[in-house]
């Protein structure tokens, strides 16, 4: 796919911002879940989607994966893979929330750890969570599309490259 030169010049910094943003989100979401495994087990169970046998393994694996992705994103290591995994997780979260909403469950998503509190208006929460995760999904897809970013291990190790000249179309910043 061809991209305008003006965008190509900015994209590596945009990708860096997305990486650090998503990395921070995964720390904020993964750490409380990781340190409260029992609460996470209950949150996963509340969605009534994962069979009981797999509830515990799932609840233990999810925050670990989130923290690992946080490390990859912040370091900028394997950005395309991390972006793809992030996108897959977001699709899964959006699906889970949509299912809870559709089946009329009144649950707190537990996205940033189990709160253990009741929610007065679950639908408002579902809308907010879905919009938020969709924004994260869009960011993750940008990383899959153009993983080259500044301040990244990928660039230092030569794992990603800036777009080649043949991929650029000459549109200036004024045309954007």
């Amino acid at each position, binding site marked *: 796919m061809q991209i305008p030169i003006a965008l190509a010049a900015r994209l590596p910094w945009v990708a860096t911002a997305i990486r650090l943003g998503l990395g921070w989100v995964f720390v904020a979401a993964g750490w*409380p879940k990781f*340190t*409260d*495994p*029992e*609460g996470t*087990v*209950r949150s996963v*169970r*509340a969605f*009534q989607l994962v069979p*009981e046998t797999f509830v*515990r*393994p799932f609840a*233990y*694996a999810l925050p*670990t*994966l989130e923290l*690992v992705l946080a490390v*990859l994103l912040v370091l900028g*290591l*394997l950005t395309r*893979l991390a972006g793809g995994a992030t996108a897959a997780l977001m699709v899964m979260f959006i699906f889970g929330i949509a299912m809870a909403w559709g089946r009329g469950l*009144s*649950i*707190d998503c537990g996205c940033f*750890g*189990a709160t*253990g*509190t*009741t*929610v*007065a208006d*679950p639908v408002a929460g579902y809308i907010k969570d879905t919009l938020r995760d969709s924004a994260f999904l869009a960011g993750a897809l940008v990383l899959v599309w153009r993983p080259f970013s500044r301040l990244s291990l990928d660039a230092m*190790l*030569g*794992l990603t490259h800036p777009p080649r000249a043949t991929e650029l179309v000459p549109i200036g910043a004024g045309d954007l």
Partner: protein
Amino acid sequence: MTNARTAKTTREKAAELRAQAERQESRRRSMLITAAVAAVILIVVAAVVLVRVASNDQKAKEAALNGPPANLVSGGFLVGNPSAKATIELYEDFQCPVCKAFEAANGAAIKAWVAAGTAKVIYHPVAILDADTKYSTRSASAAAAVVNADPKAFLAFHDLLYTNQPAEGGSGLPDSQLIDYAVQAGLAKATIEPAITAQKFAGWVGLQTDDFSKKGFTGTPTVVVNGKQIGKPQSTPTPEEVKAAVEAAAK
């Protein structure tokens, strides 16, 4: 002229081949690094899952070893006449402010039904607010220790814990305070102190909390009257809702 062009072409070809070899080498290296990092990630996630599943199994074993507290009725703490027609099952967390509000709004009415023999209460302590502090587990375990020693002391202990509920997110009441309240509720210090200090029933509380979640309950207080959860989902039942349910159950 012809010779020079040929020479240049050869040079270009050589450069092209070199560039191609470099690209291949870089691709090979990047695939190697990707595979290595992906393997490390898989190992880390699998290790955490295995360790935590094992530790959970270990906890369940320890809980079984200590056993449930004595004097359980229907898996909880009975207050009232066992033959009362209406059965109120209360799932509460001693750290939960909404439970405290529920107790303040309904405690007197519930005590009156119990005194009149209209209803009995089965208290199920659960620990869902352990995230910041282990107070939920410590207090529920202490309540189990109280019931284990003397079920008649439970209600007074329960009321003391709600009246003096610590702020959420703090470190909770110290064990010495829990022991003091158990003594105020009528127990001998020597009897109750070791069980509270050792959190003898913490494992049992964990199992209770897991059961609570497996029943599909997600918040406290959860109020069940004669097998039916009352109140709108995710909202605390109002005194009117509790009254209506208990009166219907007592008929």
